[in-house]
């Protein structure tokens, strides 16, 4: 599904101005019903269950869980690294998409395929590979194991494709005549990039960034081998959640999960807002 299609779908579901309220005919009503059913079974009900479990411990349970220094440190580390990785992805992902769309070079097709590999690789295998390459016996002489950089590295590895894949199709469909027009009107390459190309990419970049952030926040498999899971230092939230589960404290585990959900919700919401704002202006 391209970003344009996604955007249309989103407009269809939530747009206030784009469409009149009463477009539901029988056919579309059924498809909406099926869509909502599917969403409910896979997303809404499980998420509601997580939040409900978190609420089981009451407000006191939430406070105790979130005032645990180890948990708090894990949440802070996870969010900070996920945000950092997302920023890097925005830059690197856009750059890679640019190179893939605008440049011709030998092996381009291979790169195209390689980019998606992190999607397919079981994360524990990714962890093994990262440990082998950037661990104590790194053939590159580059050891980040058991440090916060290891968390960053693992996040970066699993989230690489998101921005690239979101930006690429939009860039491909960008009408080159607009850029030519801008150039003929005297715009420099830099102006062209900043004022013409980038604005039309912002929605795609924002969509990719949202996915990238959400994916990083939940990551576990690829970093358990290389991050060391050290309390207050390299322990991420998914490890904390596992700790609570191992101790039979499901409510506390759900509290941590709910915090992540809320943060992801806010971040994705903000990026979505940004995306709409830019789209409307464009």
């Amino acid at each position: 599904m391209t970003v344009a299609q996604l955007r249309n779908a989103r407009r269809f579901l939530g747009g206030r101005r784009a469409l009149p309220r009463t477009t539901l005919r029988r056919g579309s009503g059924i498809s909406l019903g099926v869509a909502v059913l599917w969403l409910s079974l896979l997303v809404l009900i499980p998420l509601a269950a997580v939040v409900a479990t978190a609420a089981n411990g009451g407000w006191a349970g939430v406070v105790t869980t979130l005032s645990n220094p180890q948990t708090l440190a894990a949440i802070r580390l996870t969010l900070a690294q996920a945000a950092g990785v997302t920023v890097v992805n925005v830059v690197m992902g856009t750059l890679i998409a640019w190179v893939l769309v605008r440049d011709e070079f030998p092996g381009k097709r291979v790169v195209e395929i390689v980019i998606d590999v992190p999607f397919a690789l079981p994360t524990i295998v990714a962890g093994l590979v990262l440990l082998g390459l950037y661990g104590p016996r790194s053939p590159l002489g580059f050891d980040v194991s058991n440090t916060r950089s290891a968390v960053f590295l693992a996040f970066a590895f699993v989230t690489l494709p998101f921005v690239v894949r979101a930006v690429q199709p939009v860039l491909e469909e960008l009408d080159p005549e607009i850029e030519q027009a801008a150039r003929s009107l005297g715009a420099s390459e830099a102006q062209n990039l900043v004022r013409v190309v980038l604005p039309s990419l912002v929605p795609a970049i924002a969509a990719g960034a949202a996915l990238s952030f959400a994916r990083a926040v939940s990551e576990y498999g690829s970093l358990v081998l290389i991050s060391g899971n050290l309390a207050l230092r390299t322990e991420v939230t998914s490890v904390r959640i596992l700790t609570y589960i191992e101790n039979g404290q499901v409510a506390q585990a759900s509290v941590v999960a709910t915090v992540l959900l809320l943060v992801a919700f806010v971040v994705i919401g903000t990026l979505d807002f940004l995306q709409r704002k830019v789209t409307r202006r464009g």
Partner: protein
Amino acid sequence: MKTSKWGWAGVVVVAAMGLAACSSGSASVAPGSAGTTAPSPAATPVTLNLVAYSVPKTANEAIEVLWAKTPEGAGVTWVESYGASGDQSRAVASGLKADYVHFSLEGDVTRLVKAGLVDESWNSGPTGGIVSSSVVVFAVRPGNPKGIHTWTDLVKDGVQIVTPNPGSSGSARWNVLAGWGSVIAGGGTEQDAIDYTTKLFQHVVALPGSGRDATTAFLAGTGDVLLSYENEAILAKQSGAAIDYVLPDTTLRIDNPGAVLKVSNPKAALWLKFLYTPQAQAEFAKAGFRPVVKGVTIGQVKGANDPSNPFPVPTKLLNINDDFGGWSHANTKFFDPDTGVITKIQVATGKSS
């Protein structure tokens, strides 16, 4: 007309839930009807569901072959599920079909007792419900370059320790408790044990998620010593890993429980009985586990330090019941995520570095 849209959604969701309820209702009929055929087990082929943690897979499979040669075990087919002990236990508690379970620590069976799935008397037998056993050892680099032999050697300058995360991996708790127990067994006080364990954690460079993850990280070059289980070290050596292991003078016995579920095929109880026979225990021994009954003829154990004397008795062997007051007490005292002694030590050492 905002409501109409949500009205649609609501109708669909409610319908779906009704559908789900119906289907689960009809599914629950099936075991009942299967139960009616139970009185003549000899005539019908028996399938037993085994749910276990992953390490004893090889041994279990070998024992199944042995059992199949006996009248009791003939014709039994197995449906097996292996995974992390805690996950497996939680899966059974929430409905995964099992006749026999084999976990890495007692708490995983206790969970099923609490859920009403395993009888409270499961651990009343001569071995206390324990079907396989091991001890905590130090896995080291070939030739033991750092000269690690005792628990105090672990906290010498420049020694880096890898041990699975006692928070997220239940079975990792054996290792840390063994260290703690070595201080108490040596006449130390509780405070001495806290001091020692604090030093131990200051030397820890990685706390991978599980025993196997820890072995993987160690084999990839992390640390100088891996706190591990004897059977895990033997298994790693059997599969060609370049490590040595050291049995410290004082160590903790690791007990892996096995139990039959209340609602299970009668054959499952016979299987559990068979596991305590010397021939079944000999298969566990081959895989590196210490036998839990006497009179087991242990052949050569490949991968052991001395294959012909694979299980030397340590000077002082601690166990969880006599030295730590049992698992439920130890879990609360040491590993509670908020108040556990070890949890606090982990946080304190995390802060100081």
